[in-house]
């Protein structure tokens, strides 16, 4: 079997003539936890839908657990757990009926684990799915996906709609699941602190392109934010490549640079800055810098030049 649980090659997707995904090469290693980030409409859900064979790609190849995504055999589908954005469960079914359906169709079913989840979340078995709150639907969906003991778990914004306690419970469950050997998780979320806590590898989508695809630690190491103070006005243009964002205020200039190295530092030194300090960046800040539009330098990345990739 391939070393990658998920592999896509040059995936392109058009919706009504509009390019939603533009040449995505995504590789999720077996046993890894991959956090896929992007703003609304960046194409995260579309990638997931293509991976699961719910949506055909306009061009390109995608494979999951070694099988072509568009024609996933039942044996491979049985190894995938999926929590959809918006928790797509059949609305007129009762919780009990949905559970029976999952039990009847799943290749594996861990009843003991599922009971534990039900007790944790206190889900009403006789209530219809349409009568459940958004949070309860999320809990039910998570419980169902996790009880099938998937080899690959795909979570599309799973904590959306959960309160703080339920979110914490979910994260603890996810960590428990992750601790079991060989599990791979593809995780999309807007709550970046969750992704930072769970993921060991990060992908950031911007306007249909994967601009970041590397390990979280490497991303933090490679993307630097510097506050540079000059004696006079800062130079109109800094000839440093891979500037993701820049901001000027008086004598001060704040730049976010990808792949910071000695050469870039030498170029900066030519302009004789009075001082420069590095501002530590959390994932959330890196994400905002990588995806925010409107910054002049970020325009370079509109062309799809990766900020950080394998």
């Amino acid at each position, binding site marked *: 079997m391939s070393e990658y649980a998920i592999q896509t090659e040059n995936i392109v997707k058009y919706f009504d003539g509009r390019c939603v995904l533009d040449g995505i090469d995504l590789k999720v290693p077996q046993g890894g936890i991959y956090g896929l980030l992007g703003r609304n409409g960046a194409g995260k859900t579309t990638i997931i839908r293509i991976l699961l064979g719910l*949506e055909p790609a306009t061009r390109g190849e995608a494979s999951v657990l070694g099988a072509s995504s568009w024609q996933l055999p039942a044996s491979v589908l049985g190894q995938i757990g999926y929590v959809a954005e918006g928790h797509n469960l059949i609305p007129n079914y009762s919780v009990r009926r949905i559970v029976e359906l999952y039990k009847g169709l799943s290749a594996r079913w861990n009843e003991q684990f599922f009971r534990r989840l039900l007790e944790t979340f206190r889900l009403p078995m006789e209530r219809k799915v349409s009568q459940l709150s958004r949070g309860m639907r999320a809990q039910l969906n998570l419980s169902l996906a996790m009880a099938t003991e998937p080899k690959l778990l795909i979570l599309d914004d799973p904590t959306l709609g959960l309160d703080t306690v339920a979110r914490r419970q979910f994260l603890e469950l996810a960590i428990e699941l992750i601790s079991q050997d060989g599990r791979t998780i593809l995780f999309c979320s807007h709550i970046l602190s969750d992704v930072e806590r769970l993921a060991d590898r990060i992908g950031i989508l911007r306007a249909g392109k994967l601009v970041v695809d590397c390990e979280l630690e490497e991303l933090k190491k490679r993307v630097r934010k510097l506050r540079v103070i000059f004696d006079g006005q800062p130079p109109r243009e800094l000839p440093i490549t891979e500037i993701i964002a820049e901001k000027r205020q008086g004598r001060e200039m704040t730049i976010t640079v990808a792949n910071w190295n000695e050469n870039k530092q030498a170029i900066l030194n030519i302009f004789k800055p009075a001082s420069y300090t590095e501002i530590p960046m959390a994932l959330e800040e890196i994400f905002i810098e990588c995806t925010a539009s409107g910054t002049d330098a970020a325009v370079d990345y509109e062309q799809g030049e990766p900020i950080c990739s394998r």
Partner: protein
Amino acid sequence: MFTLIIREIQDNWVFFIAAAILACAFSFLIGWQIYFINGMQSLPITILLMVNAVCGILIFCGLGAAQMYWDKMKRISALLTTLPVTRNQIFTARIAAGLLAVAIGFLPTVVTITAVSNLIGPSSIPGVGLVNGPTSEVWILIFLLCFASYCVGLQTGWTSNRIIPTLGSLLLSMILTCVIWIKGFELDAYLILIPFIACCLFRAWRTFSTAAL
């Protein structure tokens, strides 16, 4: 597969009940007509058959359209295909449920007429002469006609527009029924029905297996 078929039946129980009620009512009516009013029929068998066919078409067409329409609207297959279930399995289960519904709405009538004709003799059944061809062929054709209606429903149901599945499928089924009725229940009718069913099923399968769920 069994779970999928059961799910189809449970989700569309209204149509199965309607088919069973139609079959029972028609069997009773036809049995009563043949056996008790033998020779002095108030309604010819042909008219009863026509009424039954129209009701059957409504039910089976509705079943096919409802299966596909609600699947699309409630994104049922989108959920099922994330479990160890392929689109082909969902479609096969759907067809199996459709065939079962047709059988429920059809077999009791066949059994009743066969039983009654065995009791009183086929020649005594009033109105049968109006239906051309041997009785077994007529039954097979009626079965195919009902199934064709179901396939038309499947074909037109995969849309988010309510008007198309409701009126489109009914119109197509009625045209088909009229053609068969005018043409007569003979060998030629197979030549119309079997390719029609095959085309409808292929088109419905193609639409379902390539659509975004």
